[in-house]
């Protein structure tokens, strides 16, 4: 019953006219961000953080806005998957498999409504799961000392690297690049040693992770669009009529339930995230459905399963982020950056010290879900209209919002130059198929990872075996090594089925 009284507290914090307004704005922006190809959820949340920060929102308000954007982007990704065969964001790739064939059969409206309801089921159940499971995990997290945290950070890098990339060496390099960037600046442990600053005073405080995130995601994306002449843009989409396919929604109710549960647990695994959730949900439904052979030709179950799965995973990914401070996906990494910008340290203490923030956030998620259901089912036509904004307007707009956001943080041209440098770096890394999310995670967690190592060594007086001395630490080390190595052998099983038609998929 603790959970219910906590939730009541959460709603009392979250339900003010202004936060409700922010939630509605966030849901609207999020759906657009998710729907537009090339502007993924991590990207969208990243460019909005500096703005939310300069507008002087308090923690509850900033979180209401940006978690609504996060959930909204997960809903929005399906729209361009279904209508254009171009996934709006990476987790929506699986939705193209049956969504686009349904649209070609003239059932685009049905597919959009069904996937909207599936998204709602997935994220609603996952939010309940978050409310139940997060306090339990927070209690376990109390047992974590520096040695365990060090192993946990390692686990996050290993599972993220193992699952996200095709080439393990490249994923590892990505994480190491991020960790190296985090080391730049005055050593936070002794406050005197300047590391890799090259005598430049601008670098003494280190590199602001928001600058790195916006550069790596948003600015690099602009370069990709310039290279491709904006071919992936979505001009000329049409949607005829939207009705409520009640029979199909009822037919899919067990599909949605199973996919949500599977997706939630895929999301909880550190490093796995929403893409794995939608993938697992789709493949398992295909395996157990009696009409499994029609998956890929426009089966409604093939639309409901991945959407419920990816939205549930989005909720699940918040569990490790809030309780342990270890994000489960690129977008939750960006949300972690938001918390750190607001001076909130995620972890078990957050549940004890700032219940208003945690439960206010969870309450906001429930509210955002209902707002999103209303926006994405009866009002889906508006978003289809917005999808036809041409790339030559959208991308300059994104660039300018990024620049003004970062500029308003510090008012320094140096941060803007760093952002361009990160943009070039992000472009080159993506070309070489080096994943960017481990870089972000490294920049975010680098200092804490080093701190926990040094604290552990201080506690043990320099004895390195202390890192493996507790059962929790040993389990984490084994999981980390397994998570990094296992995908090498499972690669054949985890291969994605080919996309239908001749659409160009945004695979990163």
């Amino acid at each position, binding site marked *: 019953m603790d959970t219910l009284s906590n939730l009541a507290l959460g709603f009392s914090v979250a339900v003010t006219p202004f936060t409700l307004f922010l939630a509605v704005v966030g849901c609207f922006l999020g759906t657009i961000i998710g729907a537009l190809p090339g502007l993924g959820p991590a990207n969208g949340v990243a460019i909005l953080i500096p703005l939310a920060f*300069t507008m002087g929102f308090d923690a509850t308000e900033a979180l209401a806005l940006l978690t609504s954007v996060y959930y909204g982007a997960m809903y929005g990704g399906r729209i361009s998957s279904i209508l254009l065969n171009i996934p709006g964001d990476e987790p929506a790739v699986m939705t193209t498999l049956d969504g686009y064939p349904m649209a070609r059969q003239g059932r685009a409206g049905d597919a959009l409504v069904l996937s909207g309801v599936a998204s709602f089921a997935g994220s609603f159940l996952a939010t309940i799961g978050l409310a139940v499971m997060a306090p339990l995990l927070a209690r376990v997290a109390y047992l974590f000392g520096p040695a365990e945290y060090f192993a946990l950070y390692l686990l996050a890098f290993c599972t993220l690297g193992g699952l996200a990339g095709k080439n393990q060496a490249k994923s590892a390099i990505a994480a190491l690049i991020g960790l190296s960037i985090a080391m730049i600046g005055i050593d936070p442990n002794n406050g005197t040693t300047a590391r890799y600053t090259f005598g430049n005073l601008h670098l003494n405080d280190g590199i602001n992770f928001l600058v790195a995130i916006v550069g790596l995601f948003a600015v690099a994306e602009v370069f990709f669009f310039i290279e491709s002449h904006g071919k992936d843009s979505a001009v000329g989409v049409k949607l005829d009529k939207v009705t409520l396919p009640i029979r199909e929604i009822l037919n899919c109710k067990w599909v949605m339930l199973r996919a949500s549960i599977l997706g939630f647990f895929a999301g909880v695994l550190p490093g796995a995230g929403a893409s794995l959730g939608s993938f697992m949900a789709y493949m398992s439904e295909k395996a157990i459905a009696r009409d499994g052979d029609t998956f890929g030709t426009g089966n409604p179950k093939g639309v409901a399963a991945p959407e419920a799965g990816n939205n549930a995973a989005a909720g699940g990914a918040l569990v490790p982020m809030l309780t342990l401070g270890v994000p489960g996906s690129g977008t939750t990494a960006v949300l972690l950056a938001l918390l750190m910008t607001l001076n909130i340290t995620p972890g078990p203490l957050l549940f004890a010290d700032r219940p208003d923030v945690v439960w206010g956030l969870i309450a906001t998620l429930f509210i955002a879900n209902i707002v999103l259901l209303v926006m994405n089912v009866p009002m889906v036509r508006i978003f289809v209209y917005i999808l036809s904004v041409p790339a030559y307007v959208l991308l300059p707009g994104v660039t300018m919002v990024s620049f003004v956001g970062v500029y308003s943080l510090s008012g320094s041209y140096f941060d803007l130059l760093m952002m361009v440098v990160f943009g070039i770096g992000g472009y080159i890394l993506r070309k070489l198929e080096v994943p960017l999310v481990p870089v972000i995670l490294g920049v975010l967690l680098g200092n804490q990872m080093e701190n926990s190592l040094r604290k552990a060594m201080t506690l043990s007086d320099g004895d390195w075996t202390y890192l493996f001395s507790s059962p929790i630490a040993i389990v984490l080390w084994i999981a980390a090594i397994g998570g990094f190595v296992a995908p090498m052998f499972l690669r054949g099983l985890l291969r994605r089925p080919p996309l239908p038609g001749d659409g160009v998929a945004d695979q990163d």
Partner: protein
Amino acid sequence: MIRSDRVFGLAIVLVALAMIAGALQFQEPFFASGPVGPKVFPILIAGLMVLCGGLMMARPDPEPDWPHAMSLLRIAVAVVVMVGYAYALKPFGFLLPTAIASGVIAVLIRPDALRATLTGAGLSVGLFLIFKYALGLTLVPWRWPF
């Protein structure tokens, strides 16, 4: 045959070696801050980078499709415009640099001078109104440094 992955791997190895060399030069304070000082973690990370960079050189992936010379030139123009924007935002105010920068990026994505001019002007004024009145940011609309 030279592959991009080999070049990148080599660059990583060289940067990592420079990091180790740099870490050995770090000035530690007189009072010790624990058995593990500021040098150990950087050296650990750089050591792993040497290993992974070497692996990339030994087993490179197929070559990515790099942009043609013209696309590369367009990206270079975008970089120059962005750097110029970073320096121009303070002395010239918001409107003029934003109109020029977004117009140039628009023309790089779609080579159509009329649309790009309209995009630049529209985004500059539109974003200014949004930032100023909807978000309440303090932006200087224009300024002339000379």
